[in-house]
């Protein structure tokens, strides 16, 4: 190693820690060698490390199975390996993904996801076996079956994980063995707190919203508890199909193993062959064309790889969509109806290999953030309505933004107002999926309510009398009330929705300008960060600079209505923390501070990258602290995990040990929760709007 090697970029560091945490030392060693070398062949990897070729190979198998690296063999004799940063980072998100799916489609569906995640990718047959082990396996498969389904989900996942890792890394060096043995269990430990928290926040939210509902929903939910087990293979397949239709899981395709660079190269070569007889075009216009053609080809390669088989069913009518978290509804209005019985589903092909699609999670995370924002800025019921709109639109959104857009051309005015019809939405589209017990009057000006529902009055205290029973509001009035909420969403300076058209006799159509909102969200996080790291005036200054561009002290003073002398300190504090850029321009040919203009400006993209970088670094520190805390209680943990101790803690552990164990679990949970919170920030900063920033 060269003596003065710089610290690896921070994202690499974070991913190495994550891989180490999930897949053990060998995998993370290979991973970190690949970090260092970049795109390389097996031979190059061997040269760059002290690992044996065999060790590297086994590490690579795990990493490939988990889609943490790309591989590509342009020449069949040489395969290049390259890290998939997005996927590696996503290790952090599996728990979140499961809870999002649970929120949308119920426990059974999230259960499938967790199983799939432990596999990396899996064939339908593998999943069949995980849920319904063939009768000729171990004698205890009865209980395994129950667990795969039940609420002791981690164990089921652990079972699957052990199973898959076992088959991959069977019988290798000591390192591998110990790695694979503990992996499954460890994995679940680490995800558990994360997952729990995600779940509980989801539950809280559900509770908050249902506060306004009658208790009816709760009773329904209780009754459903028992129904959380997948009972038949057909049901399993239907759920897989549901997740595929909505883009949460996708068929594994060769293109998934291509790195962005390779995809680009392949697309470019293809276009050059097909359109330009293998020669590089020379004219400017042709060159521009080429850029667009390559982008289009890349999209095609990707979209073909992502397309759910069984394409004709993808264009179902919107109203059929399953959006309710209650699995009761999933049953009554969902699955059975939209998988035509006479049509064999793709999942009936047991050789079909599927994996999770992390891009879809970004869409769901965006939804969640937006809903939370509306809750803060407007009201809970308005947020609930917005959530329904967003969920409905999610169906047609495989990702948050197009990383390979057509080159920019000035839109002609007619086209500028065009919105993809699949991204338009009306109150009618969501009225069916909102609970009829949701009190649509809440969160509106009572006067607005009475405009829609006459025959009531507003009392002195501000309440509506007699109360309007949510369940009894006629359909048309429900629509109107929903529209009142939607108008509020559009009035808000965040422009949560944008008006599209109100054709005569039709419902008002809306669309959502995600990119614009995403930028506002980034700005908001920058504000929050500055507000905490500096103060209110710092935020004000940044806003002033954002609005007006490059300003000198005088102009800053004018915008903030403050005396320039008081501003100087704020500017230098923010500049030191890297939030604003400054420049000194001498007015005379001497360089003297007093005789210079002091300019400052704010660059959102730059600040966004810096904040993302800092956040990664914060996460690395959390992981490092976790490792440190673990190290402190290493022996105790080993003891507590011994098979004779598990379940008999009271007998084998002293009160002091139990106390220490409890403390450690608390620390572990706090650190993972915080990692999850930082991950939410990463999503806002990185995943909702391009250009993708790699730090």
């Amino acid at each position, binding site marked *: 190693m060269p003596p003065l090697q710089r*610290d690896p970029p921070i994202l690499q560091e974070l991913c190495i820690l994550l891989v180490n945490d999930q897949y053990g030392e060998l995998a993370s060693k290979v991973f970190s060698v690949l970090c260092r070398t970049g795109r390389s062949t097996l031979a190059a990897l061997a040269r760059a490390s002290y690992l044996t070729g065999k060790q590297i190979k086994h590490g690579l198998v795990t990493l490939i199975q988990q889609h943490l690296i790309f591989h590509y063999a342009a020449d069949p004799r040489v395969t290049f390996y390259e890290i998939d940063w997005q996927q590696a980072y996503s290790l952090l998100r599996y728990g979140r993904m499961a809870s999002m799916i649970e929120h949308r489609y119920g426990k059974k569906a999230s259960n499938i996801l967790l199983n799939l995640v432990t596999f990396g990718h899996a064939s339908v047959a593998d999943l069949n076996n995980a849920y319904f082990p063939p009768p000729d396996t171990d004698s205890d498969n009865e209980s395994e079956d129950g667990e795969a389904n039940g609420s002791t989900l981690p164990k089921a996942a652990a079972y699957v994980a052990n199973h898959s890792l076992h088959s991959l890394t069977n019988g290798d060096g000591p390192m591998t063995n110990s790695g694979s043995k503990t992996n499954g269990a460890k994995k679940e430990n680490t995800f558990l707190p994360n997952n729990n928290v995600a779940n509980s926040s989801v539950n809280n939210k559900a509770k908050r919203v249902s506060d*306004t509902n009658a208790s009816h929903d709760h009773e329904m939910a209780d009754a459903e508890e028992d129904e959380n087990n997948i009972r038949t293979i057909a049901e399993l397949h239907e759920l897989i199909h549901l997740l595929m239709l909505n883009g949460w899981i996708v068929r594994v395709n060769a293109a998934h193993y291509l790195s962005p660079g390779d995809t680009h190269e392949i697309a470019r070569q293809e276009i050059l062959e097909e359109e330009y007889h293998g020669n590089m075009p020379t004219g400017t216009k042709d060159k521009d064309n080429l850029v667009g053609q390559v982008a289009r080809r890349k999209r095609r390669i990707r979209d073909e790889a992502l397309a759910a088989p069984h394409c004709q069913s993808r264009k179902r009518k919107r109203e059929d969509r399953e959006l309710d978290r209650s699995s009761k509804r999933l049953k009554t209005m969902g699955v059975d109806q939209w998988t035509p019985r006479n049509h064999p589903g793709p999942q009936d092909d047991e050789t079909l290999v599927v994996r999770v699609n992390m891009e879809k999670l970004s869409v769901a995370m965006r939804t969640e953030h937006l809903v939370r924002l509306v809750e*803060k*800025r*407007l009201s809970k019921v308005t947020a609930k309505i917005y959530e329904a709109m967003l969920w409905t639109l999610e169906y047609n959104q495989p990702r948050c933004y197009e990383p390979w857009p057509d080159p920019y051309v000035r839109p002609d005015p007619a086209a500028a107002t065009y919105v993809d019809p699949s991204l338009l939405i009306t109150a009618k589209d969501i009225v069916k999926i909102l609970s009829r017990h949701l*009190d649509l*009057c*809440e*969160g*509106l*000006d*009572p006067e607005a*309510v009475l405009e829609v529902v006459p025959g009531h009055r507003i009392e002195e*205290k*501000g*309440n*509506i*009398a*007699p*109360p309007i029973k*949510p369940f009894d509001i006629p359909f048309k009035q429900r629509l109107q009330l929903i529209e*009142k909420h939607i108008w*509020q969403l559009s*009035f808000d300076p965040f422009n949560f929705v944008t008006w599209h058209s109100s054709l005569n006799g039709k419902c008002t159509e809306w669309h959502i300008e995600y990119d614009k909102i995403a930028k506002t969200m980034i700005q908001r*996080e920058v*504000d*929050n*960060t500055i507000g*905490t*790291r500096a103060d*209110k005036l710092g*935020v*004000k200054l940044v*806003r*002033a600079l954002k609005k007006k561009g490059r300003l000198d002290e*005088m102009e800053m*003073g004018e*915008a*903030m*209505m*403050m*005396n320039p002398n008081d501003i100087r300190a704020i500017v230098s504090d923010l500049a030191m923390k890297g939030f604003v850029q400054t420049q000194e321009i001498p007015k005379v040919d001497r360089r003297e501070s007093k005789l210079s203009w002091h300019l400052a400006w704010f660059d959102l993209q730059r600040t966004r990258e810096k*904040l993302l970088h*800092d*956040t990664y*670094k*914060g996460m690395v*520190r*959390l992981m*490092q*602290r976790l490792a*440190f*805390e673990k190290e402190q209680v290493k022996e105790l943990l080993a003891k507590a995990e011994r098979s004779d101790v598990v379940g008999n803690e009271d007998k084998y552990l002293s009160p002091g040990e139990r106390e220490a164990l409890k403390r450690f679990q*608390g620390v572990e949970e*706090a650190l993972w929760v*915080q990692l*999850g*919170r*930082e991950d*939410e920030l990463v999503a806002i900063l990185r995943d909702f709007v391009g250009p993708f920033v790699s730090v």
Partner: protein
Amino acid sequence: MPPESKTEPPPDDESALASVGPSKVDALYSKCAEAPQGTFFIQRELASMQIAESTGQLLALLQELTDRHLMKSLELHDGQPCWVLRTREEAEKLRQMSADERLLYQMIDDAQNDGVWSKALRARAGLTPQRTNKVLKALESKGLVKAITNVKVPNKKMYLLKDLEPSPEIAGGPWQTDGEYDLALIHAVSNLVEKYVREKTWKQVPVGMNRLPQDIEENPRMHSVPRNMSIQLYPSAKSILRYITEGQFIKEKRITEGYMEELLDMMTLDGRLEKMSATTYRTARDSSFGMNGFVEAPCGTCPVFDLCGNEGEITASTCAYFTEWIDARAEDR
């Protein structure tokens, strides 16, 4: 161009006086004094007073008054000459001035509420800096002129007639006093504005306003809902200004729509107001800053964040902030 004011007329020339007679001079002066102080008179107006018998005589009278510093001649923005009366005390003071004093005074007077920069005075009068300063001091002590600070260029001293308000250009409008932002005033007015806009844009209703009456307690928990109106009807600089003026909240200063807009812009930067349309505003429902995952964690606000490394003196394992943070979390649970 009224040449009279620019070129110093010979003060002792009695001939003009002789030709028109002193009574007419006084009569014209008294007639003009009936109008409010500071009125601009154009020639047609003065002629209609029917004191002078001819235009020639009128001009002679005006010249006489000007010479005696009882009037000053100016130019309207369209180039038309006009005259303004001076008080007798003022004229008296002027008469007693030295030539240099009078010269500078007139230059300052000409500038009106734009003021003149002391350096410009010196250059135009061709005096030494010492002399200029001395003369200006003398004028100041006689209570004729005052020095003010230009908000744009704080180290430039500007001179202005004693009883003129500096133009907003130099004084910075109602929000500034002596070139400094009047923070107390801004604070007071912005609070008024915020309160007004909040009331106009949000309505306090009980949480669960649509429940059975018995569910609504004596003192129900309230929350804000947006008022039922279109965004064009939200408060604007105009309507907010009307509220402030009609409420007579500010006595000393006159606020114009433009200055109100300036304040509203500033409050938008504060996050206290939110822009709803090109001209209308509402208050933020909750203008507090949130936290985020980064700043909640110890590293997010750590003073040695940039020095902290994977190894070395400052690391996550040796870090005291982390220990503190973990202990605090443990206590919360």
